[in-house]
């Protein structure tokens, strides 16, 4: 399954940020069909801004011309489902909070690597950061641009988040 084509991007946010968002969705589709062993992703909708509250992992891509962060968030059930899929575990298998955070961080790491590979043509100095697991709220500001895409990663409802600071 391939991700749906993003429509109306340039009316909602500028084209360069839209390209990052598209790379994020494509990387999520690759993630779903490989590391998570799902059929693919279903794109449900998208909106400017951040989901609230959120639980999931973020990872940064930084370069000479770039400072963006990507997240994969949902709720406690979402994160546990992603962790079990990554670790080839059954739904009834027990997972502690630390293991869930570690696994979802790794999912974000793979996602960030996929975005980086797709966007090196825009900034060849891109470096991938280390993932962080977040439970709570990211406070938006006038300097922060955010875009959220709701998808089903296989059977798991997830929100993909792209963030960048205005220069």
């Amino acid at each position, binding site marked *: 399954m391939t991700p749906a084509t993003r429509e109306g991007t340039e009316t909602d946010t500028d084209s360069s940020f839209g390209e990052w968002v598209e790379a994020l969705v494509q990387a999520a589709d690759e993630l779903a069909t*490989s*590391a998570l062993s799902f059929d693919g992703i279903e794109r449900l909708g998208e909106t400017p801004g951040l989901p609230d509250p959120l639980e999931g992992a973020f990872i940064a891509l930084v370069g000479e011309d770039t400072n963006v962060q990507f997240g994969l968030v949902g709720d406690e059930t979402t994160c546990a489902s992603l*962790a079990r899929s990554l670790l080839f575990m059954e739904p009834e298998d027990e997972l502690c909070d630390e*293991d869930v955070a*570690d696994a979802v961080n790794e999912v974000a*790491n793979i996602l960030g*690597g996929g975005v980086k590979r797709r966007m090196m043509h825009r900034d060849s100095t891109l470096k991938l950061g280390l993932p962080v697991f977040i439970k709570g709220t990211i406070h938006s500001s006038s300097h922060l641009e955010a875009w959220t895409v709701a998808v089903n990663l296989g059977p798991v409802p997830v929100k993909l988040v792209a963030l960048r600071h205005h220069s």
Partner: protein
Amino acid sequence: MKILIVDDSKAMRMIVMRHLRQAGYGDADLVEAANGAEGLETTRREVPDLVLSDWNMPEMNGHEFLCALRAEGNDVRFGFVTSESTPEMRALATGSGAEFLIAKPFTVEAFEAALSGAAA
């Protein structure tokens, strides 16, 4: 055969071990480390035949780890297992002495292909 797996993610170390078993290395002696600094100490202590290391890790990253090994004259076979898979990173890896780079997300076949060369 002794294989050292270096990754700051416990989940990824488990996944790498699973893929190694499925790739035919179920009899290998697997040891783990959580970053490059631990990997360096473990390599000195355990003397593995092969090191599989992540790239982006806290404290000492995988490239620094590889360079530290080579700087002290250790020529252990070394491969990266990482989400970093751009041509530039592959060139840096091999130029620094790595035999291969397995990109995440990976398959059992990727391990079979890479390790068949590394284990030869």
